[in-house]
């Protein structure tokens, strides 16, 4: 029994969620191999080799755009060696893993939060309002992993790195542009403190004016509710919720957020939740550890001043 974990990385280094997926794979038992497919990705492969608990790193140097089509084909080409294939349930993993499952004619188990045995997993459904325990009888278990549910694997290994030959480019799609948000702040999915704003912020300008100083003070990542994204205050990759990012920081401060079901799905596993809202009846207060009923336009600057 061997699990193949597909690394998410930027060639130079591993993304944090890869370490969480490795932790989930470790719960399965058996050996773990890590596939690092990229362009000059030796840096990421070496970081993978240093992770605790890995038997082997496979490094595939892919000299063309690594589309979902190309990555899925590469994974399928070696899938016969594995009982399990794991990847982070980020936009990276969600994109190509269902292709892998379909090509292998097996089900995919999406976004697991627990591994109960080699074939039984727990995953949230209905925006996290229910937890389904599912059993797979398929020959290969194709699984994506919710990062916040598994503590990251630390360094402590020295696995060999083997080269894996790339397949030819499928040519089905090509990347013609990229607009990545440049930010000095911690990554939303991995930050210890998250400050999120909702429709109550009123405008994108007000969101930035009030929340950026608070995020600076606490070295926090900035997030938002779907309502704030819909209203155009912030880009979509700020979105926390069922259809956005799932976060579980030490401290989550929800400002001007009502607490719709789909937002709570993305943050209710945070360790400490603070809610600031002028309406005491909003559902966000039901899950907040510390609710402050106040006008956010006054409370947030005061909070910045007192920290």
């Amino acid at each position, binding site marked *: 029994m061997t699990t193949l974990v597909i690394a998410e990385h930027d060639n130079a280094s591993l993304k944090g969620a890869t370490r969480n997926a490795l932790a989930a794979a470790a719960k399965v038992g058996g050996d773990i191999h890590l596939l690092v497919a990229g362009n000059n990705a030796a840096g990421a492969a070496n970081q993978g080799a240093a992770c605790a608990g890995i038997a082997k790193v496979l490094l595939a140097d892919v000299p063309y755009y690594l*589309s*979902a089509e190309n990555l*899925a084909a590469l994974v399928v080409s070696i899938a016969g060696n594995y009982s399990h294939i794991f990847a982070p349930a980020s*936009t990276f993993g969600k*994109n190509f893993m*269902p*292709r892998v*499952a*379909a*090509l292998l004619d*097996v*089900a*995919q188990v*999406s*976004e697991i939060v627990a591994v109960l045995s080699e074939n*039984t997993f727990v995953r*949230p*459904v*209905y925006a*996290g*309002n*229910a937890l389904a*325990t*599912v*059993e*797979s*009888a398929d020959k290969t278990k194709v699984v994506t992993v919710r990062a916040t549910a598994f503590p990251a694997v630390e360094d402590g290994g020295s696995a060999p790195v083997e080269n894996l030959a790339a397949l030819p480019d499928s040519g*089905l*799609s*090509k*990347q*013609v*542009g*990229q*607009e*990545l*948000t440049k930010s000095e702040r911690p990554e939303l999915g991995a930050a210890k*403190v998250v400050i999120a704003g909702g429709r109550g912020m009123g405008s994108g300008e007000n969101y930035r004016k009030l929340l950026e100083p608070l995020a600076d003070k606490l070295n926090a990542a900035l997030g938002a509710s779907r309502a704030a*994204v819909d209203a155009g205050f912030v880009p*979509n*990759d700020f*979105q926390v919720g*069922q*259809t956005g990012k799932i976060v579980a920081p*030490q*401290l989550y401060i929800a400002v001007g957020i009502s607490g719709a079901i*789909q937002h709570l799905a993305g943050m209710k596993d945070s360790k*400490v*939740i*603070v809610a600031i809202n002028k309406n005491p009846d909003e559902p966000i*207060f039901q899950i*907040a*550890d*510390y*609710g*402050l009923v*106040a006008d956010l336009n006054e*409370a947030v600057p005061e909070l910045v001043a*007192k*920290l």
Partner: protein
Amino acid sequence: MKILVPVKRVVDANVKVRPKADESGVDLANLKMAMNPFDEIAVEEAVRLKENGAATEVVVVSCGSSASQETLRTALSVGADRAILVDCGETELQPLAVAKLLKAVCVEEAPKLVIAGKQAIDDDANQVGQMLAALQGWPQAAFASKVEIVGDGAKVTREVDGGLEILEVSLPAVVTADLRLNEPRYAKLPDVMKAKKKPLDTKTPADLGVDIAPRLKTLKVSEPPKRQGGGKVADVADLVNKLKNEAKVI
């Protein structure tokens, strides 16, 4: 150019669903049902592509029980031309089975573009569009926030962690719709009436030669751990004090 849009009947997004007491599933009795919100966005995008001349026909398809006819009529009322119900009775449908049914429909209908919602808000699987693309050997552009038909391909802006990615794909292809792709319109009453007269064909999985037996067995569906909330603080000073000295998180 023909566009195929798969739509799913799901519990309304604003309804809080609870597991049944015997943990055999969730209790959906008498709950409000609606079209999956991402599928509404997919239908809207297809209709807009038809309105701006890039597409000639929009066909909607739903796999589910006969109640899914209602969802198909909703899609017809906002501009889809005709509908196909793949009547699966009450059999539990999993994403791989739906992708296989849609593949069979694609073989019959030969669409140039499939626009699906990125995720259904009931099983939260986020699989069908990508699986269909794989089964057909087609390119995919998942989590789209912008779709343009350019020449004989499509240029799609995708929402990815950390920003946006722009892809060019050859057609036929599968695009899955993310939140910001568009804002779906509401149906006007005369269009709701007209939708009742639009064609709606019914097929079965057997007609399409697809085995829809579930692959994953659900052992139980349980309530997530309850969070103890509801605490209040008097003012900002109290909040800072509690975060520092009680919760010790700052």
